[in-house]
């Protein structure tokens, strides 16, 4: 029963990191300035928002669901929170004269809105048993429309206090990267160190068995979507803070697709029950390296998307072969 180091297993479980390393080497050789510290920090800051969304949506995918709402809910939370931190004397403010609320309060409001939105559609998924794809598609439309109803124009001129998380730096390190890793740590903790995480694995693997083993499937599913939505709220506030503006029509638009792609490339199985946080981190970095590296290599935007598409499909094919062998 002793644990032996299984080289084959180690390689197959971490093959995604090999892919990442190979990609990084290719990029670095093709474009030496890729390897500068500055560029790596830029890459991470650029992927932080989508990465945090991926940390959320991987729970949904793990539970054999999906969350298409997160891009739109991030946009909605971005607009609402941004509107609370505009200066009182700013003529184009959403609430002229309201003035800047303290950032910690606004962040709490943002998180609460996120949790609330997730709880609503989570409960709908858990109790009505409608497919999460449909429920979250509906929630996405509603959140996007909600953002546009809330404000028809971008919300800008935000307080620097609020923008701290999105755009400030501590020494040379952008705070947004720190937030990203904090969210990574929380996700890893939730997934491996709590009952909630174990429950989600079981629900995704076999929800009937989970129920028989005494797991409250409904409650845990709601928590999954609350977590997705809280991640979306964090992402939305970072988005607004980073750009200094929240745009009801464009903020977070289609970000859910990138997040799902990152989680998928990272080995999260859409048939449920399989997910490794480290894999998802690698998935996020792989997409980041492609985004960043191909821009630097002057590859055209359409080509970048083709490469991304191929990598997503390819990674799932590999993954399915791997899982088929295991079974």
């Amino acid at each position: 029963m002793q644990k032996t180091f299984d080289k084959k297993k180690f390689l197959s479980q971490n093959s995604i990191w090999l892919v990442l390393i190979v990609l990084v080497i290719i990029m670095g050789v093709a474009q030496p300035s890729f390897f500068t510290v500055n560029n790596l920090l830029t890459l991470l800051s650029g992927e932080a928002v989508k990465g945090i969304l991926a940390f959320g949506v991987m729970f949904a995918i793990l539970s054999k669901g999906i969350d298409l709402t997160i891009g739109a809910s991030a946009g909605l939370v971005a607009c609402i929170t941004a509107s609370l931190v505009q200066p009182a004397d700013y003529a184009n403010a959403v609430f002229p004269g309201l003035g800047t609320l303290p950032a910690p309060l606004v962040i709490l409001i943002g998180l609460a809105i996120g949790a609330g939105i997730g709880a609503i559609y989570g409960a709908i998924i858990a109790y009505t048993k409608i497919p999460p794809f449909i429920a979250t598609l509906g929630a996405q439309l509603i959140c996007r429309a909600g953002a546009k109803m809330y404000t028809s124009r971008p919300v800008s001129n935000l307080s620097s206090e609020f923008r701290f998380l999105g755009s400030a730096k501590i020494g040379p390190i952008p705070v947004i990267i720190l937030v990203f890793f904090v969210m990574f740590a929380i996700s890893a903790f939730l997934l491996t160190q709590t009952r909630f995480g174990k429950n989600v694995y079981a629900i995704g693997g076999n929800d009937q068995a989970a129920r028989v083993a005494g797991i409250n499937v409904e409650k845990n599913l709601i928590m999954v979507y609350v977590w997705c939505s809280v991640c979306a709220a964090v992402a939305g506030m970072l988005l607004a803070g980073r750009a200094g503006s929240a745009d009801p029509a464009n903020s977070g638009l289609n970000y859910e697709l990138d997040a799902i792609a990152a989680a998928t490339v990272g080995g999260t199985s859409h048939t449920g029950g399989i997910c490794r946080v480290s894999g998802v981190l690698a998935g996020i970095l792989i997409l980041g390296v492609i985004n960043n590296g191909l821009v630097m290599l002057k590859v055209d935007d359409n080509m970048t998307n083709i490469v991304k598409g191929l990598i997503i499909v390819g990674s799932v094919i590999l993954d399915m072969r791997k899982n088929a062998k295991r079974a």
Partner: protein
Amino acid sequence: MKRRIFAGFIASAMMVSMLAGCGSNDGGEQPQGGESGAEGGSGHKVTLIMSQRDEWLSEMEAAAQAAAKDIGIDLTTQDANSDTSKMIQYIESSVTAGEDAIIVNMVDPETAAQCVEAAGEVPVVFVNRFPGDPSVLNEKAVYVGSDEMTSGAFQGEYLAKYFKDQGKTEISYLMLNGILGQTSTTNRTASVLKALEDNGIKATEAAAPLAANYDRSEALDMISPLLTTTEYDCIISNNDAMALGAVEAMMQQGLDPKSVPIVGIDATADGRQAIKDGTLAMTVFQNAEGQGRASLQAAANLIDGKPIADGTGYEVDDENEFIIWVPFEPVTIDNVADYD
């Protein structure tokens, strides 16, 4: 099989009723407009179909609504959400609803002919986006707006002068495109490059064309890795939001956005503030209020059979009497105060 057809029928019936529902709702908000603007008292019913509602278009929509109130028109607005087929649907349902005129802010300018066809006998005013085929314009279909090809030209002329003052004739640039494949993107990009060339500047692109979808944070993420790794003399953007994303990116990289000229289009509130701060070198004012008001006035004129430019404060084109030009205006630190 039968069942499927039936389901399709039900679905389309639902859609129609939903559309009708939307229309009547929006209309329901408007009646005070009709009453308070009693001086004109025309009571005409007009529908305005928006391609989408970004900041600038929302401003135009608001101006059209204000004008409707002033001259006593019952105005309904719809948002096609960048979907051409939805736009055509809205036109058709407006015709069915007995609207007197339709103002269309086209999703895709190449669909002008289909719009006119869908409107049938109802007069159409195209606003902001110029028909791909100008021959559709006639006494029942007119255009109010600016010439997209001139917005980029203002950017190009500004940059040409800037570099000539420094004695440079060869420059490299970073270009932030809107949505690739959209006419406004294509025209804005083409016109700025043409103006640079016409003014004797040899401009080369420092990177691949970036497509940031008119979005601030996407522009920020996309341009960040290039700022310290490529050589460029200026940053050209298809709109202010993306230009401001570039400004933000430079600041986060510890670069001074004033070190290179960054130019945008739209002169949004944020854009004008950036001009005052000096972070944005210039932008181009596209008169949202002028276009909104003029389009509504033109619609009223069409219904009443008056000359289309009557009361708009603008002139028709020298060669085509069915076009009302609302000119672009370049905005720099020198004249930005005029636009507040």
